[in-house]
């Protein structure tokens, strides 16, 4: 027993990295498609999306960089798809400089990803999404809380041009939208500071009473739970898992086959599988480390070298 614990205590960390890497690669190549149930949290968020009425102006804020994309892009896909289904007027903006580009990637796709617009138009043959009418990319703004305060005076003053440099008053989507209070809801996707927690929540929600909900990376999720409990946040997608659940909860009927499907693609389901497998391995390592620690504490014979 002592030899085993001695070996486990002194195991090279690179062996652990290698085991994790093998687990990721094997599971990616041979996915199991483990069952994924939709949690109360994801269902609640879907309810917020469904509460948006036709023609309602809503903000989707892309406050993250490329490092947050693996977790936040699935959320953005689910939110945009459902908002397009609800025929909302979607205003995309960003407090992070990479945000507008990532918003375009989500809409139009990149590489093997076809993008949410193509997917939506394929599933809804009668509808063609139009830039400036159904959605607009207002681009990146620096200034954090100042931008929110200025938006509540005049949206057109602070965002005089869209991300491509065209004056926003030319677009029909702007009809009836003058101030921040005209927006029915804010969906803020945040990868850290300068986003949901320190801009949208204190200023849009608390100062101007605009309903706010959103998504965050799982690293920062524990900071957000208290605002759910206090009902300052109406809904929260806390990391990739809830994003995958929301995608699964959004159903559609395939116009070609008439079969029902959901937005959870095989690619995302496969990644959820890998998450589960890696988490099990990490739990095993934590248990081994604790067992080694307690064995050493009790018998004091493990090698400290």
């Amino acid at each position: 027993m002592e030899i085993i614990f001695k070996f486990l205590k002194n195991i090279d960390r690179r062996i652990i990295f290698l085991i994790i890497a093998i687990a990721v690669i094997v599971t990616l190549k041979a996915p199991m498609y483990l069952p994924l149930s939709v949690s109360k949290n994801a269902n609640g968020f879907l309810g917020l999306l469904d509460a948006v009425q036709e023609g309602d102006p809503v903000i989707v804020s892309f406050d993250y960089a490329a490092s947050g994309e693996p977790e936040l892009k699935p959320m953005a896909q689910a939110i945009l798809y459902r908002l397009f289904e609800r025929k909302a007027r979607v205003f995309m903006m960003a407090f992070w400089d990479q945000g507008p580009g990532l918003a375009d990637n989500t809409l139009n796709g990149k590489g093997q990803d076809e993008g949410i617009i193509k997917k939506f138009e394929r599933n809804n043959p009668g509808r063609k999404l139009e830039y400036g009418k159904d959605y607009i990319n207002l681009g990146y703004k620096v200034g954090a809380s100042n931008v929110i305060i200025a938006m509540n005076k005049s949206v057109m003053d602070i965002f005089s041009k869209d991300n491509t440099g065209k004056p926003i008053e030319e677009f029909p989507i702007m009809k009836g939208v003058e101030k921040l209070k005209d927006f029915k809801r804010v969906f803020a996707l945040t990868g850290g500071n300068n986003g949901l927690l320190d801009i949208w929540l204190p200023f849009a929600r608390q100062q101007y009473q605009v309903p706010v909900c959103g998504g965050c990376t799982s690293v920062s999720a524990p900071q957000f739970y208290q605002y759910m409990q206090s009902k300052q946040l109406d809904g929260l997608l806390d990391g990739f898992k809830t994003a995958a659940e929301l995608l699964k909860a959004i159903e559609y009927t395939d116009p070609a086959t008439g079969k029902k499907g959901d937005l959870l693609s095989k690619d995302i389901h496969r990644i959820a599988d890998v998450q589960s497998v890696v988490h099990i391995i990490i739990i095993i390592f934590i248990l081994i480390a604790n067992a080694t620690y307690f064995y050493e504490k009790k018998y004091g014979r493990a090698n400290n070298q």
Partner: protein
Amino acid sequence: MSEIIGINIAAILTLGIYSFLYEDNFAYKIAEYLFVGTSAGYAMARQYHSIIVPNVWTPISTGTDYYVIIPTVLGLLMLTMLVPSLSVLSRIPISIVVGFGAGMGAMAVVQTDIIPQISATMLPLWSNISWTVALNNFIIIGGVICSLIYFFFSTEHKGLVFGTGSQIGIMFLMVTFGAQFGTTIMGRVQLLINRCDFLLNDWVSLLFK
């Protein structure tokens, strides 16, 4: 063609970064420096086109708004930090930024954290609520009080109230740290999966095409 080049560069840099897991090496350093340099360059170019051009250059050059000269001069005064004999001037914009930031921050904290969070802790423990809700409320109230006791340093942590209370507070803090550790693992693993997925499906499939 540009996409093929881009995928190859991204794959080589990803492998360069992950090579650090074995040990620090030249490939990692190259990838790291490239990341820092391109990030800084991208941010600078983006700030120039998103802020300097529309907010400073256009209003002044077209003569539509000369008031922007005031914040522009204040912003330029920040750069006097680089010249020791003039660095005292940088205190003017810094004092404005600190004053404004403190004011806005204080307001945000009061209206987001202090008042709503205290209100959210004032929960009923009985009367017309189910036992599960009552238990939940009890845990929230107990957790807040015990955690605050742990951070109360004016009295020695002894006896039933301060001794036991601080011990229970530690337990709540440990559970919080555990939750944070768990979600951190989840987030980092997601980044690893995404990179492996890119290497396996985008890069390897490109190599064998």
